[in-house]
């Protein structure tokens, strides 16, 4: 639901959405509106990471989605807003001139938890350590972690 203000900016009323940040600059190419991955991360708290050739994953605080409609301009990754909206559950409001967009996160659907596949969030997992204490993935939060599951057989 959008309303236009007298100043020419779009004041957006999102139903149930949390506005993420100030408007992000939008670039249009081939009729598609893109925002930069850098802006998404710094201003909207959405990380964009490469998964495989031509496939990226976008993750916010509570969910991830795969993206295929991205483009590279030099070193910069740009993400198609339409796909981001559809895949990650984001509402997008464009400025009247179409050069900026405001994002709001829709409420997350009830998730079934992680599948363990690349491009999904690692779940909370914990085990008993060899010393009897607790070993959890949470204690490594913010770091890159390699988990190797093996057995004595």
């Amino acid at each position: 639901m959008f309303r236009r203000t007298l100043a020419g900016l779009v004041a957006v009323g999102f139903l149930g959405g949390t506005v993420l940040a100030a408007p992000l600059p939008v670039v249009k190419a081939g009729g598609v509106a893109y925002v930069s991955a850098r802006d998404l991360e710094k201003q909207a708290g959405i990380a964009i990471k490469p998964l495989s050739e031509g496939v990226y994953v976008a993750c916010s605080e509570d969910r991830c989605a795969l993206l295929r409609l991205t483009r590279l301009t030099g070193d910069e990754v740009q993400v198609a807003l339409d796909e981001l909206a559809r895949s990650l559950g984001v509402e997008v409001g464009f400025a009247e001139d179409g050069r900026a967009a405001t994002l709001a996160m829709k409420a997350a659907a009830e998730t079934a938890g992680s599948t363990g596949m690349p491009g999904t969030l690692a779940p909370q997992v914990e085990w008993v350590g060899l010393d009897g204490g607790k070993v959890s993935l949470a204690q490594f939060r913010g770091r890159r972690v390699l988990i190797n599951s093996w057995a004595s057989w």
Partner: protein
Amino acid sequence: MVRPWVEKAGATFAVGVDRSDVLGSAFGLKAIPVSFLVDEVGIIRLRGGGPSAEFLAEIEGILKEPVSGVRSQPPRLADASPIEELRGRVVVEPDRGGHRLALAQALERAGWLEEAEAEATEAVRRMPNDAQAWFTRGLVRLRREQRDTALRDFREAQRRDPGNWRIRKQIWALENPERFYGPEGIDWAWQREEVERERGEK
């Protein structure tokens, strides 16, 4: 079982013992070893088998990326809820096998093995074709040192999920411990022979 291997390797990283098969049941693992690389955001970026050159090269590529400031909240596994919450779900939906199984796994982790076995039995009764339910009860029974009944449960699990190497190897190690824990270490030739023998019997 695990400590000698860790000490022999001189490992300095954290080692957890997954007695109740948390990763296996959460991620539907059919075989191990398996590795996951989780980045600083909390995203699973890689999933692979053993330490191949390709897998290591992918890891190195990710380690070279700039570090993101975004941090995601990890989703909770279905069976990671507090025991009382899981008990509550069983009260509300007593015939839902999945709730019984999640409670059994949580009870096993807490060390309440008698009750874990009871709940695992309820899970098996309600989901008789679910390999994980049988496997979980087998693991609980093994912890209770009920080797024979554990083995029967593992075989039932294997019948329902014959391609699951975790179940197969658990059976092998129980029935033939000398092939795994003898002074010569793991007898890989014997395992290959077993696979060939099974193929020949089909």
